């Protein structure tokens, strides 16, 4: 099986390559990247006026299987990923039951074999049942394929547990994906505290509920030598902590989400729970800090925190609706439209943040178009203009904060392991 992608503009941030070239895929690997490749391929994709880039890698996705298949499952979630240009997604462990044992990973692997159209990289819990009390069998879980550990959604409040987890996981060189939130400070909060929360009468979540935990866990990583990756950084003070830590050589990385990079707490105005996220949308100053962090390297990568919830759950008053928004199918167009076309960051930097950067954090041989690498590739049309419509998504859920937004840019082909899985709006299986 071979595929030849011709005439595209090849952007490979891992090597710095950005020029018109052809890409030849043989079996599941990238065979050659060169100009004017003559090959008798089984399939040819004409990428004229299109971008050819490594498939996107999303470190932070909630596939909801097992347990909440009404929100999303591996079948729908990986199709949403493919349609969004993502070829590898980390599956967060806050399922029912929580993925905290080798059996959980084996279940995920078997379901993925039958239903997934992109690579699923399993993340296991840090503590048993994500209860924050007893650490999991990290070694066994790494053996069975866990690429990282996270109690995402249930922040680890006990500093001793966090300390031990960082110390122990440092043996395996895997990161802990750390949802930083001091729940004593954020309790009952609905949105970021500030002038808007006061005006709207919604209980605020102070920025320090995030940044104080970021500071704590950076200090614990520094002390233990463990690897901490701060999830969905949302406030300026957290960005400051990470920047200072990196300067002093602490093993810390972090991500920002498309919604925190493009929206602010002003979006809460209409009491629409599709803007209720955790951490909450911040101020314009926070948003500026995240964009600056992308530029100067403080923020290593972009991850969606794709968090599907049913219409019924989200169509409710603010205190009753759950936190979270979906992101896989809106991430690239929204980031391209609001960050690249506005001149905030370059296209190559955006692609770096969603390809090679997360791959490096997870020690993957992905996110690159190097010859011999896994043939995970996306072809992007940057000119197509359209309005985002969650009713057309492959995701089972519609809780998207960008409904009706006019955007440019769309994946037109997604290739996973040398196989076309998405082409011109359709899943190919």
């Amino acid at each position, binding site marked *: 099986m071979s595929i030849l992608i011709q005439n595209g503009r090849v952007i490979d941030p891992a090597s710095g390559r950005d020029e018109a070239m052809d890409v030849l895929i043989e079996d599941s690997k990238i065979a050659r990247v060169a100009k004017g490749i003559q090959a008798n391929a089984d399939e040819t994709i004409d990428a004229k006026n299109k971008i050819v880039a490594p498939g996107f890698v999303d470190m932070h996705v909630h596939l909801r299987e097992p347990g909440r298949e009404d929100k999303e499952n591996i079948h729908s979630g990986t199709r949403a990923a493919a349609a969004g240009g993502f070829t590898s997604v980390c599956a967060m462990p806050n399922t029912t039951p929580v993925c905290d044992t080798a059996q959980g990973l084996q279940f995920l692997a078997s379901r993925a074999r039958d239903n997934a159209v992109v690579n699923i990289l399993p993340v296991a819990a840090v503590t048993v049942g994500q209860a924050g009390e007893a650490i999991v069998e990290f070694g066994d879980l790494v053996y069975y394929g866990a690429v990282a550990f996270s109690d995402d959604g249930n922040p680890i409040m006990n500093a001793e547990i966090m300390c031990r987890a960082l110390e122990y996981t440092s043996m395996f060189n895997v990161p802990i994906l750390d949802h930083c939130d001091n729940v004593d400070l954020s309790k009952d909060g609905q949105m970021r505290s*500030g*002038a808007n929360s*006061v005006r709207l*009468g*919604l209980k605020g979540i102070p920025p320090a509920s995030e940044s104080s935990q970021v500071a704590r866990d950076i200090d614990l990583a520094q002390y233990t030598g463990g690897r901490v990756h701060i999830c969905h950084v949302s406030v300026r003070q957290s960005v400051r902590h990470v920047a200072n830590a990196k300067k002093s050589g602490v093993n810390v990385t972090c991500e920002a989400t498309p919604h925190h990079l493009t929206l602010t707490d002003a979006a809460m105005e209409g009491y629409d729970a599709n803007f209720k996220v955790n951490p909450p949308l911040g101020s314009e100053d926070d948003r500026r800090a995240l964009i600056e962090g992308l530029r100067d390297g403080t923020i290593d990568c972009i991850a969606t925190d794709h968090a599907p919830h049913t219409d019924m759950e989200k169509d*409710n*008053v603010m*205190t*009753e609706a759950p936190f979270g928004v979906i992101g896989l199918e809106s991430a690239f167009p929204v980031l391209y439209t609001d960050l690249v076309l506005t001149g905030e960051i370059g296209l190559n930097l955006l692609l770096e943040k969603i390809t090679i950067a997360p791959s490096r954090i997870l020690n993957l041989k992905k996110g690159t178009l190097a010859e011999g690498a896994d043939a995970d590739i996306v072809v992007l049309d940057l000119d197509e203009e359209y309005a985002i419509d969650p009713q057309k998504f492959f995701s089972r859920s519609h809780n998207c904060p960008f409904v009706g937004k006019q955007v440019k840019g769309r994946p037109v082909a997604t290739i996973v392991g040398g196989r076309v899985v998405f082409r011109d709006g359709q899943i190919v299986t």
Partner: protein
Amino acid sequence: MRVATETKTAAERLVQRKHLLGLEEMTKEEILLILDTAKSFKEIFTRSVKKVPTLRGKTVVNLFFENSTRTRTSFEIAAKRLSADVVNFSVSTSSVTKGETLLDTARTIEAMGADFIVMRHGTSGAPWFLSRRNRAAVINAGDGTHEHPTQGLLDAYTILEHKKRFEGLKVVILGDISHSRVARSNIWALTKLGAQVTICGPRTLIPSSFADYGVRVSYDLKEAISDADVINLLRIQLERQQRNLFPSIREYRLLYQINEQRLAMAKPDVLIMHPGPINRGVEISQEVADGPHSVILEQVTNGVAVRMAVLYLLAGSRGLDEAEED
């Protein structure tokens, strides 16, 4: 009943307004129109038959997700004096946790043919949510810690009745501003109407960002109430103390209670207002609560007139006035 004609643009705007959700989104002219209309309704109260046929054949549902005997009764009397049929639909929070969402409850009531839903809900924004999903006119009777527009209107009405103006008046709102929907509705109404508003209380209960809207922020009672024309006191709730927002009722009393000695720092004709229910001996001393400056019971009377005005004006906007008679 006649709507005052000198504020015709406001009347036109209000006629287009389908719901009464909050005062932040209303204009000064709309607020003045409601106050003016309330005045004509209050005149009815001195008659032996306190009833007009304005809303005959219309159904008002009081949908209260939180207990409130005062506000619910006030709306009930207002609607009955307009000849509407009134139904009280009390929903304890426990039946919501049983699985019925606000949307289901509201749809049920809509199916029964309600023309107005007067709603109190513990979540800020709930009336906005409901108004997008329901055909009935929604009147916010208090949402979470956000707004309580009819309370803001009746407070403004009471101030106007006594002071005959808003421009240049010094109004102090004292107490737990953070958790108070009464404070927010008062702030929006009074600042739009031209009063100088000061909010005062312990720093843990005062959102300083109100300064962005032209409100003075003070943590010092004496400084705040000197030369005040109006002091509007808010109820101090024990649960706030339990969450360590202030150390004790005793300390609150020491720092912020309005008693006769402190009353002397304000203007001689200062009005003492309170939305009720009062914690006698906590935010207000017994003597002041029952003293000559207190207009607390007048507020209750005015509440009925203001709520009649709101129902009447919204009915006009919904073409519900075919039952109106001279």
